[in-house]
């Protein structure tokens, strides 16, 4: 199977959730300056699209890298059910301390999906809106480049 290209399977999922960009590390005024209207204390929401790419050998018996039903069930259990129609700041433990920007959402969703047993997780790409998208391939995050963490501290 070394001849020919490397093949990845990509699948798109959707969930709707609310969030608020706010950090206890900054004062009220600084939060407002950094996050603008995303700092509204009542929160706001998005229709998120999560694009998941996995790689592996294409099984000659099935023509598949991974059975879609297995991938769908895994992503639904690990991400869609706990995130859909939730307030991310309060209802997803990872975001009690970490600002739920879409960058951080990529990192969290990658961590939840990386142990998919049937194929290798290559990438998570999230569309926060039709105009903003973010990708993460599991490399090390440098603390001072994370939005919402201007002091550069690890969350």
């Amino acid at each position, binding site marked *: 199977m070394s001849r*020919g*290209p490397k*093949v990845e399977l990509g699948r798109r*999922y959707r969930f709707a959730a609310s969030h608020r960009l706010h950090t206890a590390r900054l004062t009220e005024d600084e939060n407002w300056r950094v996050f603008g209207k995303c700092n509204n204390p009542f929160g706001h929401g998005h229709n998120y699209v999560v694009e998941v790419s996995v790689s592996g050998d*294409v099984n000659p018996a*099935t*023509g598949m890298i991974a059975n879609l039903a297995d991938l769908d069930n895994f992503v639904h259990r690990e991400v869609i059910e706990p995130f859909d129609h939730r307030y991310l700041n309060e209802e997803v433990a990872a975001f009690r301390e970490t600002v739920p920007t879409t960058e951080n959402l990529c990192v969290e969703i990658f961590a939840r999906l990386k142990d998919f047993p049937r194929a290798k997780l290559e990438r998570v790409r999230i569309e926060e809106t039709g105009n903003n998208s973010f990708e993460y391939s599991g490399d090390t995050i440098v603390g001072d480049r994370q939005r919402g963490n201007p002091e550069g501290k690890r969350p």
Partner: protein
Amino acid sequence: MILLTRKIEFSASHFYHNPEFSPEENLRVFGKCNNPHGHGHNYTLEVTVAGEPDPATGMVLDLKDLKEILEREVMQRMDHRHLNYEVPELAGQIPTCENVARVIWNLLEPRITQGKLHRVRLYESADLFADCYRNGAKAV
């Protein structure tokens, strides 16, 4: 380096069936895609070529040439065809998105002589696609 992408659409039918599986196993593995009457998709193909623009023309490759390659290698072979029966390159393979994308990569790769084929992305639907990259190359 510049990445240039051309998109085309084609429509084709297929079904999934492995003659070595029992009928029950075929149904369990492939679900409704196992329906022997077949079903169809509007496929969207994105072909990305990497290269440096020619100083004289400003082009990585002439889009007319790419269009012609895609017409000959993909459209004439697959558009309004039954992928199980009418595409010899897929003979003996289950025509999944992964396998169709791989066949398209193998057809296009030797034909693209200006620049290098970088990625083939084949959408079977808006929410399901397969990507092919040069083996050993890092995905961009």
